[in-house]
Every structure is written in structure tokens, then in C-alpha cells.
């Protein structure tokens, strides 16, 4: 690895993949060379309009050769273009290729190349990229000229009956118009032009070259038959007509050929435009997706649009594959056969090894789906399965598929990053709250602790000097402050239980009367001359609650009533059923809550500046915020209202439980 830094570029060897039967030899030779040079191997397939006309046999061979290249460690790439040499050289230039390995396939000069002055692929490559080292692997058994062979294959495809009819119709129309021209006394050259136009139109409107050739021949024959003396025979008196026929045929052929090529290019570019559109659309849709699942769905739908095949998606969760999503290409739902345990196992293999597997690959190929890892670098975000149904993914589709999968991986990565940021923000906020809480409490605990330790110290050291009354006062101070500490600690414990979120509330069925009773017995000793009354109903009010937390709510509300109302005030606690809820009121007839405090009274650390507690005991603004947290955790609401004629009513609701009595 150290050595690599000494070189400006690394060796990269390019090998061209084709369906030719000798291609494996060339690929292997390139792989050996790459090993010898310790360089990276890149396998390239140039997709041109002609590749679409490949036979099934050729397709299978191509797929096998691509698989071989990948197996030998090559990085597979596909480019598009009519001009193969130019595409190879451009690719080589852009991706820093240093050496190209190719077979002699198609390099023998043909008559046509000689005629039209066309250079061989190697010669063209040398012209386009003079800096490349080109290695030729000699090969005798190769059938002649690949592009030419393919073109012939295309040309030899039998034309459809529709195309044949069209060709014949055009020729007949031309003949009819020619007859009209003859009657109108137009020159023969007009009629010849008419036939050339016919050949041209045939080339444009039909596919395959046979129709063009037929049209050219028909033009010559019909012209000879209908317009050259002797009429209605293929003989001709004037020898010069032979030349006319020849030129006419050649012109029709060349025009037809050129037109056909334009049509081919148009088709290819339309296809490319479709692919580009699918990719672009994928990109846009992924940007709009807000969740990992939406991203997965977008990728799946785009793949279906491209391939018309069923797609499954396994999301990755905590180091294993999570739930499987399924999208059908048609209306039929095949999820049952595609989401089997075996298919999942292969998908898991893909996930853990970060390599493709399943149908059409060499790893576990007996599955229904081809599995691709959705990844960015080493991070795998999921596995996409494409139900091939025995079909091969063509090279041009393949690269689009990889692009879509790649886009999806990027979207998932950014989604995950956003999620992590959000979690970090929540964590930071919680930390902030916790810090505030600790600061506030630490501060508020000092005072009672000072009172307790100070009083105790005095009692211990100067027992004899103190009067009985003084000693009682000190003991009372210790007692009161420790009670306050106990309440505060209870609240803190309750807060950690409710707001931690990790501890589940312990719900049991309770009678609200019993809970009120128990809460009241807790606080009874703190009532400084207050009267507490409970208004009972005859209804049996059963609620499903965490009884300690609800007791804490009641305790806090009753203690607040004691604290903020003068002695001899009355605190009334009542409970009743209202619809699906049990409503509990803790009402007092004290001064009430100021309107400006009402919106904030349940906020944490809120302490009113308007109201001072009667016993001048400090408040740290935890009690009511805790009440709200607890009540909301139970699915109820808490609010403060005015009592009539004066005072405050704290009202909270709890979902009522229906009663089912077992005798």
C-alpha cells in the first residue's frame, strides 16, 4: 500500500466484454495481466443500438462473460454509444485506464472498410487515445467482424407482415403517381426521384433493413416494368437504362440505409431518455421521501417501472434484516412465494457479505430473486430483491438498476444521519433539562439541610443551656425540614419514573375513592388547621392507574392547597364520572390563582411571583409540572379553574375502567 503513493496513477487495465465465444479467453488474459501488474481490472461493455438486436443465445453468452469478468475481480461498467471506439477511448480517458486488452475479433479489414476507408477498431482507438497501451490477443476461431455480423443479424430478421404490406403499398402508390406523371407528360427523372423517395419513406416507416432492400429492388423493377419501353416487361431496349437502374438502386439503398440508421439512433436516444428520466425521477422522489420506508418504496416503484418485475426490500435494523416490503409489478400478489425463509436467508447473506446473490448470480442462484445490497461503501442499509422470473437483466438496465439502488442507499444514509441528529438533539435537550433540574434541586436542598444539620448540632452541644421550648422548636425545625425533603424526594423519584420513558408505568385497577383516602392519610399531618372534606358519589369509580403516581398527583395538589391558602380554609376533594373519564377536583376557598399565572402554572420550575406560600416554605416548581406529566401519561388532562366565590380548582381526568364483577 505504501508503494502506491510513489506513483501518480495506479495501473488500471480495461477489457472489453462481448458475447463472442472467444471473449472469455480475452477476459482471462486480462485478469492474468492485472494480477501480474497488481492493478485494478475494469471490464467494459459498450451498449450500442445493435446490441438490442442480439439473439437470446448471444445474450446468455454476454451475461456469462460479464459474470466471468466479475468473478475474476473485474469492476463491471457499461457505456452507451454508436461509435464503439470513441466510447472505449472516452471511458479509458475519464477513468484513468492505462492498458486495454482486446481480442482480434472484428479487426480484419473487410471489403467495406476498404471501400469506405473505415479504420479498424484498434486503429480508431489509437487515433482517439494515442497514450493507451493496447494489447491484442490473437484469435483464429473468431467469426468475422462483430459489428458487421450483428448488423446482418438485424437485417436478416424476417420483417413483420405489417412492414411488408407497408412496403408494397408505398411502391404501388409510387407507381400510381408515376403513371399520373407520365400522363401529365413529366420527365422520367421525376418518376425516378419518386421511387427513390419511396425507398426512403420505407426505410423511415419500417424496421429492419430487408424492407429497404425490397423497396429498392421493387422500385427498379416497377420502374422498368411500368415506365420503360417496352412497357409491362422487364426487358429494356435502351442499354443506358441499365446504368439508370444501377444508380437508382444504389441511391435508394444508401438513402434507405442512412434513414434506417437515423431511425435506430432515434430509438436508442428515446430509450436513453426514458432511462435518464427514470433516474432523474428517482432522485426527485427520493428527495421528497421522509422516512426510510418511503425511500425504499420509491426505489422499488422505480425499479418496477424500469423492469416490470416484482421487487422486495428488506430493511436493515440493528445489524440484521428487519421487515420485508413488497411491491408487485402487476396486480397479482406473489409476496407469499417471494418472502419465504429461504429467500430471506439469501437476502441476509447479501446483507452480511455486502455482495449480490440469488438468481442469475453464482451465489445461491436457486432463489426467485436477485439480491442487491443497498449500500454506500461498507454501510449496508438494506437488501433489494428483484424477482427475475427467469429473465436476465440486460446490461443497460443493469447500470440503471445499480444507479437507482445507489441513489436509494444515499437517501437512506442521509435519512439515518438526520435521524441520528434528531436523537442527539433530543438527548441534548434532556441533558439540558436534567442539568436544570439538578441545579435547581441542589440549590433548594441546601436550605433545609442547613436547618437540619444546624439544629441538630445545637441540640447536641448546648442541650443544658436551652429551654425546653427552644429545644422543641429546634426539633420541630428538623422534623419539618426533613418532611419537606421527603416530599421533594418523592417528587423526584416520580419524575424519573414518568419522564425517563424507560420504566413502564405499573397499571392496576383502583377505586379512586381508596386512592383519595390513602393520599389524604399521607398529608393529614401537614394540614395546619385546614378542613378537608371528601364528596363521595355512590358510583363505583374504577380507574386503571399507576397508583403511586396518582397518589403523588393528589398529594401534591392537596399540599399545594394547604400551602397557598390561609389556615381555616376548606379543601374539598370530589370525584365523579363524566363520559369515558373520571374527573377529580381538588378545590379550595383561598385567594385563587392569578390569571397571569394560569398558563404557566404547570410548567417546570415555574414559581409565581404573585403568590407567596402561607407557610413561607419555598417552592421549586416541580410539583404541578410533575402532576401534568403523570396525568398525561395516563391519557388524561389537568387544568386549573376559578372556584366560586373565590379559590382555585385543580381538575384532572383519568380514563374510567368498566366494571366487571366476579361473584
Amino acid at each position, binding site marked *: 500500500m505504501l508503494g502506491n503513493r510513489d506513483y501518480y496513477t495506479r495501473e488500471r487495465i480495461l477489457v472489453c466484454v462481448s458475447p463472442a465465444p472467444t471473449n472469455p479467453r480475452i477476459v482471462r488474459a486480462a485478469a492474468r495481466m492485472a494480477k501480474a501488474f497488481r492493478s485494478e481490472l475494469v471490464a467494459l461493455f459498450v451498449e450500442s443500438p445493435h446490441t438490442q438486436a442480439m439473439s437470446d443465445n448471444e445474450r446468455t453468452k454476454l451475461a456469462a462473460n460479464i459474470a466471468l469478468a466479475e468473478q475474476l475481480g473485474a469492476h463491471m461498467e457499461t457505456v452507451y454509444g454508436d461509435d464503439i471506439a470513441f466510447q472505449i477511448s472516452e471511458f479509458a480517458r475519464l477513468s484513468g485506464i492505462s492498458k486495454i486488452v482486446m481480442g482480434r475479433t472484428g479487426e480484419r479489414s473487410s471489403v467495406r472498410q476498404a471501400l469506405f476507408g473505415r479504420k479498424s477498431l484498434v486503429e480508431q482507438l489509437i487515433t482517439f487515445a494515442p497514450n493507451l497501451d493496447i494489447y491484442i490477443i490473437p484469435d483464429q476461431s473468431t467469426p468475422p467482424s462483430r459489428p458487421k455480423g450483428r448488423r446482418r443479424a438485424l437485417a436478416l430478421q424476417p420483417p413483420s407482415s405489417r412492414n411488408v404490406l407497408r412496403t408494397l403499398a408505398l411502391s404501388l402508390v409510387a407507381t400510381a403517381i408515376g403513371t399520373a406523371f407520365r400522363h401529365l407528360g413529366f420527365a422520367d427523372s421525376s418518376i425516378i426521384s419518386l421511387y427513390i423517395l419511396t425507398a426512403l419513406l420505407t426505410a423511415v416507416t419500417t424496421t429492419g433493413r430487408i424492407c429497404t432492400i425490397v423497396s429498392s429492388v421493387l422500385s427498379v423493377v416497377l420502374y422498368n416494368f411500368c415506365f420503360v419501353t417496352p412497357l409491362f416487361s422487364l426487358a429494356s431496349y435502351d442499354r443506358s437504362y441499365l446504368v439508370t437502374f444501377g444508380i437508382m438502386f444504389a441511391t435508394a439503398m444508401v438513402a434507405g440505409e442512412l434513414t434506417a440508421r437515423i431511425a435506430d439512433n432515434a430509438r436508442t436516444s428515446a430509450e436513453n431518455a426514458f432511462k435518464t428520466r427514470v433516474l432523474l425521477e428517482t432522485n426527485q422522489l427520493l428527495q421528497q421521501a421522509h422516512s426510510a420506508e418511503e425511500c425504499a418504496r420509491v426505489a422499488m416503484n422505480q425499479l418496477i417501472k424500469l423492469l416490470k418485475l416484482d421487487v422486495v426490500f428488506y430493511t436493515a435494523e440493528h445489524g440484521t434484516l428487519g421487515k420485508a416490503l413488497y411491491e408487485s409489478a402487476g396486480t397479482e400478489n406473489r409476496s407469499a412465494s417471494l418472502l419465504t425463509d429461504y429467500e430471506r436467508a439469501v437476502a441476509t447473506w447479501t446483507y452480511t457479505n455486502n455482495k449480490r446473490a440469488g438468481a442469475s448470480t453464482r451465489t445461491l442462484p436457486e432463489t426467485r430473486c436477485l439480491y442487491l445490497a443497498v449500500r454506500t461503501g461498507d454501510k449496508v442499509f438494506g437488501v433489494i430483491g428483484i424477482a427475475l422470473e427467469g429473465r436476465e437483466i440486460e446490461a443497460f438496465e443493469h447500470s440503471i438498476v445499480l444507479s437507482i439502488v445507489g441513489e436509494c442507499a444515499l437517501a437512506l444514509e442521509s435519512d439515518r444521519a438526520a435521524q441520528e441528529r434528531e436523537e442527539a438533539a433530543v438527548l441534548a435537550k434532556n441533558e439540558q433539562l436534567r442539568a436544570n433540574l439538578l441545579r435547581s434541586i441542589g440549590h433548594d436542598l441546601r436550605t433545609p439541610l442547613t436547618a437540619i444539620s444546624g439544629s441538630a448540632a445545637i441540640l447536641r452541644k448546648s442541650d443544658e443551656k436551652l429551654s425546653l421550648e427552644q429545644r422543641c422548636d429546634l426539633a420541630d425545625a428538623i422534623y419539618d425540614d*426533613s418532611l419537606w425533603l*421527603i416530599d421533594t424526594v*418523592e417528587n423526584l*423519584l416520580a419524575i424519573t419514573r414518568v419522564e425517563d420513558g424507560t420504566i413502564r408505568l*405499573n397499571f*392496576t*385497577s*383502583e*377505586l379512586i*375513592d*381508596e*386512592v383519595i*383516602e*390513602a393520599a389524604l392519610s399521607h398529608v393529614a399531618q401537614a394540614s395546619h388547621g385546614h378542613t378537608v372534606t*371528601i364528596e*363521595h358519589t355512590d358510583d*363505583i369509580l*374504577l380507574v386503571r392507574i399507576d*397508583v*403511586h403516581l396518582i*397518589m403523588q398527583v393528589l398529594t401534591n395538589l392537596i399540599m399545594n392547597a394547604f400551602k397557598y391558602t390561609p389556615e381555616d380554609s376548606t379543601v374539598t376533594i370530589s370525584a365523579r364520572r363524566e363520559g369515558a373519564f373520571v374527573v377529580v377536583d381538588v378545590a379550595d376557598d383561598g385567594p385563587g390563582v392569578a390569571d397571569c399565572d394560569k398558563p404557566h402554572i404547570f410548567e417546570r420550575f415555574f414559581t409565581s411571583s404573585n403568590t407567596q406560600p402561607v407557610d413561607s416554605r419555598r417552592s421549586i416548581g416541580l410539583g404541578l409540572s410533575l402532576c401534568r406529566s403523570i396525568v398525561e401519561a395516563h391519557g388524561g388532562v389537568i387544568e386549573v379553574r376559578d372556584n366560586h366565590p373565590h379559590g382555585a380548582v385543580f381538575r384532572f381526568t383519568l380514563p374510567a*375502567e368498566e*366494571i*366487571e*364483577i*366476579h*361473584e
Partner: protein
Amino acid sequence: MNNAAKSRILLVEDDLTVQNLVSTALDLHGYVVSKVCNGQAAIMDAVSHGPSLIMLDLGLPDIDGIEVITKIRSWSAVPIIVISARTEDSDKIAALDAGADDYLTKPFSVDELLARVRANLRRSSMTSSESTEASTFDNGPLHIDYAAGYATKDGSELSLTPTEYKLLVLLAKNVDKVLTHTFITREIWGTSWDSDLASLRVFMRTLRKKIEADPSHPKMIQTHMGVGYRMQRL
């Protein structure tokens, strides 16, 4: 206090401050207190001295408090009061189900502590002096005739449903002892599901209405939130 003077209480508590507080309080009220700091010593002391009552902190340094209860229960019916610092009910319920008679949650008041000690000592002296198969039961205005199968309040017969009567008998036979919800529902219905707990709440309410002098301030049957019920001797 003559009776209490003879009572020997074993205090198992590893926190010295609390140990000191409890032993001082008990000492002041005439009980003899022996103090130990761990479970092994507690078992040894229970074997060798045969205390009248054990106060046991659940959080011991050597062995689990529940284990101590189980070991002692294997040979002795001595009242055990558990002291727990945790607010979680599960600890108390586990201790009660293992054979403890009562519990105290820290922080507790000295009055509460003394009341529990008195109640448990009384209960154990009653069960040992009177036959557990006594044919009648009296508590304040309440009178139960087990043999005849009826209960009266201030001399007038109570009309109780069969379930209410079963519940009342169960509480009366375990007077002064905290019975957990699970224990009660198992005894009454044979199961202990959530729906049984709801039923128990309802029956307890109707029973209280019939036997308590003021049902809104129940004295005879105490509610131990999240744990269970106890019939208190009036």
C-alpha cells in the same frame, strides 16, 4: 407495657443510623433489642435467642432479605416486619408472599413503627394463646360467628353476599396482617387476574360500607396502596 417489657426484638439493619434510630425508639418503649447487620447473623440470632419479633431490612449486604424470611419461616412463625427503602411494591409483595407479616417503607415515622410492632406482637400472642380455630371473632362493633356463618355490627346482623362474607372472614382470620391482593384473590376466586383485582376493589368497597362506622374514613380495613389490605384491631 408489662407485656412489652418481656418482648425481645431482633433488628436486622445494615445502616447504622437507621439501626440506632429504631433501636432507640424501641428501647425507649421498653423492648429489648438485639441488633445485627447481616442476614447470616440474623438467622443465627433467630435460632439461638428466639426473638418475639423480627424487623428485617430487605437490602442486606450478604444474602437477600427474602431468603432470610424463607429460612426463618421454615421453622418459626415469629412475626416479621420488613423494612424497605424501595418504593417499588414488588419487593414488599415478594416479602409478604414469602411469609413476612408486615412492612414499613423508608422514610417512616417512629409512631408508625411502634404501632406496627404493637399490632404484630399482639397478633402473635393472640394466635398462640387463643386457638386459631376459634368459633367467634370480635373487633370493635364487629362480631363474626364462624360456626353459624354470620356477622353482626353493633348487635344487628349484616346482610353480606357470599363473596363479602368470605372476604370478611379471610381478613378477620388474619387480623393485623397485611394480605396482598394476589393472596386475597387466590383465596376468594382461586385466580389472580387483573379483572379479579377490579372485583376485589368493588367488593371491598361494598363490604366497608356495611361494616365501617364511617365508610369514607375506614378504620377497620386499611388500604395498603399497591400492596393489599389489612384488618386492624380496633
